[in-house]
């Protein structure tokens, strides 16, 4: 058994509030929890019942992931209480439970890039995968999808079951200003395959190339189709 899996156990998040008090996150983040009580009761239930799978902080932005979805929310301090800066819905649902986001923090420009993938449809000779990239501008507290594209793989031999997709991993090359987004796509026998996209970052994102390694089949073509293409928030402001 994998040692990492073997060692997993449930925990509880505790937080130090701005006033110095140490509280369970359910209390320290009660205002955030309350916000999602009306937006999505299931997600709210998971927040207050210690069903958080993953969390992270980027300056004053909190990331929380549960089984049903995830949020990136900017917090502010109000009379020693942490509250979400706005009440808009920042929840991304995971309807098929097959999507887990990956993110990369651009510390210089205080931006978070979030990437997500899912299978849109599949046939015996093709599969279409959607990849979304969102940008969170920490300074402006703006969070939106900036780029979304479909990758369609056309096989020359038959796939008999729905491919299994695994979460994306994102990385950024400072030298070439390119993102790489890679994920595993499994075939009939749950065998390893790898899809890799490189996106060039300018004022918006542009697909530079898409590559794949699918030893379980022969890929005839990769088609890509851009669905959302918005200008990124400007870098290098103070």
């Amino acid at each position: 058994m994998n040692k990492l899996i073997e060692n997993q156990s449930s925990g509880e998040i505790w937080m130090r509030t701005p006033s110095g008090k140490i509280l369970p996150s359910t209390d320290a983040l009660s205002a955030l929890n309350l916000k999602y009580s009306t937006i999505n009761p299931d997600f709210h239930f998971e927040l207050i019942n210690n069903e958080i799978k993953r969390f992270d902080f980027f300056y004053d932005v909190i990331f929380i992931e549960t089984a049903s979805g995830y949020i990136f929310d900017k917090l502010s301090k109000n009379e020693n209480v942490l509250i979400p800066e706005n009440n808009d819905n920042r929840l991304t649902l995971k309807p098929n439970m097959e999507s887990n986001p990956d993110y990369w923090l651009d510390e210089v420009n205080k931006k978070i890039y979030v990437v997500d993938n899912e299978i849109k449809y599949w046939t015996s000779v093709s599969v279409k995968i959607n990849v979304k990239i969102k940008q969170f501008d920490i300074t402006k507290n703006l969070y939106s999808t900036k780029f979304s594209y479909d990758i369609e793989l056309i096989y020359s031999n038959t796939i008999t079951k729905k491919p299994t997709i695994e979460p994306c991993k994102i990385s950024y090359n400072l030298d070439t200003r390119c993102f790489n987004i890679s994920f595993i796509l499994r075939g009939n026998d749950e065998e390893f395959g790898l899809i890799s996209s490189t996106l060039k970052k300018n004022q918006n994102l542009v697909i530079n190339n898409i590559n794949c390694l699918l030893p379980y089949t022969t890929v005839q073509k990769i088609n890509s189709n851009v669905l959302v293409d918005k200008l990124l928030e400007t870098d290098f402001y103070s």
Partner: protein
Amino acid sequence: MLNFEKTINLTTSLHNTITSFYAPLTLTINPSSLIVSKKIYKIEYIFDDEIKTQTLFYKKTTTETLPFSSEIGDPRNYKCNKTFYITSTATSQIFGVSANVYQLGVTNPTKIEFKLNLISPKMDGTGGFFDSVQLLYTRMFGVNNDILYVFESVNPNYYIPVVVNWNNKPVIEPIVDLSSKSRRAYNILKPFQNQNVENPYNIDFVDKQKEVENDPNYPDCK
């Protein structure tokens, strides 16, 4: 570094066969069960990139023309090891191997030729080497957009770092045509072969002939 191992017996029935194995493969050729009519004085193992020779290392006489495998100097008592790596971008590669068996009193050697079809191992899934492999981490770096992939395997548990450069593929935007190269493996299915470039043929081959020649207990063995 993962290395598959296989021992095959060198016999005349091996001639003109082709056998599939996973790569990288350390092949051990065992000639001990080789049956020929005369005494063997030399076996040449011919690979694509080198020839290894195992010769008789005791004094031979013209009268000794019968096989005598219990003698320590008989070339059949010594195995030959060779490690093969897939050197192309394909997921399989065929290697030719031949053994020339020289016998006393026989002009032409007996040739035993066979082929090895070496296949990149299946990483995981049904029949895979690992139970599963997960992508843990990526990092893209350098002007050529090299990508470091770090995989974690389960049973056996490894962290497998692999550097891949996808840039060699033709890019026809927005369609990338992969018809001719879709199955190429880079090094991703060959994480075990990362040392190829550094030391492709690091074979621990002991020269028994030289050992015995220098052995003071056998002063006449030349």
